[in-house]
């Protein structure tokens, strides 16, 4: 087991698209062990993607089971070749990243997603995620496509025009 070095901006490797995993072998399993050890070693990150340690393979670890406030989640997930197949709704939220020290920004993400992914043995599963976990998954899949949350940051002013604000106003009208 090894703690791997986390690439940080402006490392150009963070902008590269990762390749699908083809061999579900001992090498893959050993790498996953190291990737998880790396996630655990740093500041409390709910996810990590292989390209963040310079491995350009479509591998993500996600664990939203330990958030400060409990939120719906699928526990500890190792997702190989994850592919989002459905998006629904959108929501603004604030994100930070192991690869982007000392900066956070607001990003729009889908509220609900469906994805297919393989486990470390190569078996396919389908997941439905919502809210925080869905946001975290989208953040990680972006890494596999060479995108950082910085590529999606929106002005705080944009938030003023989000659909949610109008929905809230509509709700209030109904009550009064």
């Amino acid at each position, binding site marked *: 087991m090894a703690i791997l070095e986390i690439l940080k901006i402006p490392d150009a490797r963070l902008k590269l698209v990762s390749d699908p995993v083809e061999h579900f072998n001992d090498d893959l399993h050993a790498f996953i062990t190291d990737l998880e050890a790396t996630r655990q070693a740093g500041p409390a*990150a709910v996810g990590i993607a292989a390209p963040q340690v310079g491995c350009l393979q479509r591998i993500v670890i996600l664990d939203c089971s330990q958030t400060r406030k409990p939120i719906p989640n699928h526990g500890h997930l190792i997702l190989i070749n994850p592919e989002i197949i459905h998006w629904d709704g959108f929501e603004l*939220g*604030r*994100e930070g990243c*192991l690869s982007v020290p*000392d900066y956070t920004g607001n990003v729009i993400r889908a509220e609900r997603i469906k994805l297919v992914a393989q486990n470390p043995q190569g078996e396919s599963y389908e997941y439905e995620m919502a809210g925080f976990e869905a946001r*975290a998954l989208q*953040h990680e899949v972006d890494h596999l496509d060479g995108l950082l949350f910085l590529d999606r940051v929106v002005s*705080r002013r944009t938030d003023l025009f989000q659909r949610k*604000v109008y929905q809230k106003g509509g709700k209030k009208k109904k009550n009064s």
Partner: protein
Amino acid sequence: MNNWKMVTLVGEDKPGIVAQTTDALYRNGLTLGETSMMRLGGNFSMMMMVSGEGDLKAVLAPVAEALNLHLHVDEIAGRLHQHMAPNIQIRVMGADQPGIVARVTGALAASGFNILELESDVAGTAQDPVYIMTIQGVSEEAVEVLQQALDGLGEEGVDVSVSAIEMLFA
């Protein structure tokens, strides 16, 4: 490099203000830190952390004069990498009315809320202005406690909503 100054420049908006200002800083070996720049009511306002050797006022005065900007320079004790992450967002929206900002922020201050960012705007029309404000900040109080403190501050037609910001760190 730690002798940061806060530079404020304000004046009628026109293209090129940022370019000419930052070019003057760069050519004189001065460094930018955190900045915030925005058009407010047809004026362009800039707040910039600037560090480096030399007479900052002398560097910027000719630019300010040429662009007809008010220039203000303060010595500050600030540093970079002092970010705080907000955990609460408050949205206020509704009919424009006097004192709403003072009442909302007063109630927040009384609860120990620390405002990190506040942006407000007047939308709608001149006849029917709509006031919109978003506040992001740090509070140790629960969302429900803050919401209760703010409920009833707005009169009819003003919506004040408090929500938690769940920071995603991944």
